[in-house]
């Protein structure tokens, strides 16, 4: 008797497995089609619609969208008011990214290099914990903390440093009656909310640096500070770049924090919200929405040019 293969009994699931095993391309298709549909139609599709909308304009008189391609809407982006909105958002995103990086690096370095076992788990939880509670709740909490009657003002006044804080709050750009109505408050809240997105990529990058590289550097005569500058930091740059992409783009797009905390001057997110809502000017909202996308594209191009991803 000659039997081929099939040592096991041919159950239905067994023969289905064999069917798939013999058709690797089918398996690939089954795996890829759902995410590609999602990405292609729902995500790219809506992005394209957005792009298309931005090339239409609105009739000032009837407030109806005129479906004819025009650059007029984009031209309106370059009015002084709109440019200041873009510049304000860009500056805030940059400041938030830099501060997040400065705070996140030592923390990520400690978690990656020194903490182990329970301590590491504890740090992970500490970094992630804020993400487990509602975003709005946390922002409102900061509004209270930063308010004139809040914890920070109270602490600083108790230390007798109230005049210093008041003086800082009268500085140009900062200007606000309290922390919760100044850019300082906005920045603090942004940094707090986005910090985990900076810590985790840096920590992951540092985690991937093998101990032997640090030993090799030390072995070749480098003191700890030189090893840090020549080996550890360069190898952490892809992590810093990844983290900064998160903090930068999340700040560019956010409209709730600047709405609740800080001066009432609008950011890009608020502008989009107002144009598509109250004003009903969908083309203008779309044009504004394109701004963070373009800025991010430029940001990534610069990061790549500077070699931020070379060590990947």
């Amino acid at each position, binding site marked *: 008797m000659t039997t081929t293969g099939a040592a096991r009994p041919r159950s239905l699931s067994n023969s289905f497995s064999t069917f798939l095993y013999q058709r690797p391309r089918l398996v690939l298709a089954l795996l890829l089609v759902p995410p590609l549909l999602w990405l292609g139609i729902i995500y790219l599709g809506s992005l394209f619609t957005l792009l298309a909308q931005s090339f239409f304009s609105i009739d000032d008189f009837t407030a109806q969208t005129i479906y004819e391609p025009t650059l007029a809407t984009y031209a309106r982006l370059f009015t002084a008011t709109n440019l200041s909105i873009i510049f304000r958002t860009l500056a805030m995103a940059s400041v938030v990214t830099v501060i997040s990086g400065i705070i996140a690096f030592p923390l990520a370095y400690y978690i990656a290099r020194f903490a182990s076992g329970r301590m590491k788990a504890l740090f992970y939880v500490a970094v992630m914990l804020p993400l487990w509670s509602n975003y709005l709740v946390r922002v409102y909490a900061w509004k209270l903390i930063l308010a004139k009657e809040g914890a920070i003002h109270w602490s600083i006044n108790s230390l007798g440093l109230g005049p210093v804080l008041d003086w800082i709050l009268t500085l140009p750009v900062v200007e606000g009656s309290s922390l919760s109505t100044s850019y300082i408050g906005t920045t603090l809240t942004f940094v707090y909310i986005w910090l985990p997105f900076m810590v985790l990529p840096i920590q992951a990058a540092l985690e991937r640096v093998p101990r*032997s590289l640090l*030993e*090799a550097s*030390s*072995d070749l*005569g*480098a003191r700890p500070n030189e090893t840090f500058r020549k*080996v550890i930091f360069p190898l952490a740059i892809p992590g810093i770049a990844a983290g900064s992409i998160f903090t930068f783009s999340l700040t560019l797009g956010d409209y709730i924090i600047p709405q609740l905390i800080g001066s009432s001057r609008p950011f890009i997110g608020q502008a989009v919200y107002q144009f598509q809502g109250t004003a009903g000017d969908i083309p203008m909202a779309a044009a504004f929405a394109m701004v963070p996308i373009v800025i991010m594209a430029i940001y990534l191009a610069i990061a790549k040019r500077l070699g931020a991803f070379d*060590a990947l």
Partner: protein
Amino acid sequence: MTSSSGATAVSFQNVSRHYGAVKAVDDVNFDIRDGEFFAMLGPSGSGKTTCLRLIAGFEQPTAGHVVVHGVNMNGVPPYDRDVNTVFQDYALFPHMTVLDNVAYGLMIRKVPVAQRRQQAEEMLEMVALGGFGGRKPSQLSGGQRQRVALARALVNHPKVLLLDEPLGALDLKLREQMQVELKAIQRRVGITFVYVTHDQGEALSMSDRVAVFNQGKIEQLASPIELYEKPATTFVAGFVGISNLLEGAAARAATGAEQACSIRPEKIHLERSDAAIPADAMTARGRVSSILYLGANTRYEVALEGGGELTVTLQNREAHAEPAEGETVQLWWEARHLMRFAQ
């Protein structure tokens, strides 16, 4: 300390390194001579790598002193030691070119750019990687990375070069080739090489002297020939080469004494059961339990009638009528080849 070939490069003086209750290195004393190729051989966890790391400065001794060229190294950090290491995983900096990797130590010592480039390039030439300076380590093969790691260490002209299983990740052919090259490079530069390996073949073929480690202590420190021909302990006999250890009743049946002993497989003659045997030879009878044909030679496992088992290797100098599996054979060897061990 009173070695004929000159100064002492590294001296271990009552050195211990304990991790809690684990004694990785346990009260070890030995000297490494200046300019020699010194191997530290042993199974994993025997303390050989810890000894290497003690010389490099990555570990500090729990007790005792590590002395390098007359200077006590206790408390001296790795970056202040005149020794360099070739790491097991090479530890090349992935974000730097091959040339920058090699020039790293020179850069740290603030050697001017032009000079350090030139020295690094010369060193790359020496390890047969001239023209590879512009590549990244990820673009090199395992063997090439290994050479870069060697060049990166040697360019600093260390007093002692430490090599931590440097050939472990290479395939057999490349490993044998690198053994020859390493030995040649060591002769050329004249630097003391301290070589950690678990491969006895590597240790025997390259080294001037070998220290065999077991459980944090040195079992024997001797030349490769002495180590193979006159192993001091049963452990050394077993770890270096095939041991053929006979103990207790089996030893008495083969040699007349119950003392543990061993005979190297190539020292044993294997004859048909009816063949004539020299009168002064030591003999044993047994049954061939397995035959392993290895090309250049054939390895026989013979179960002795008096108990125990001996491995015999025969050169396949010409096709001869071999005993078959299960056949009864006579073994004989000269008494001077028998190695006896204190219990």
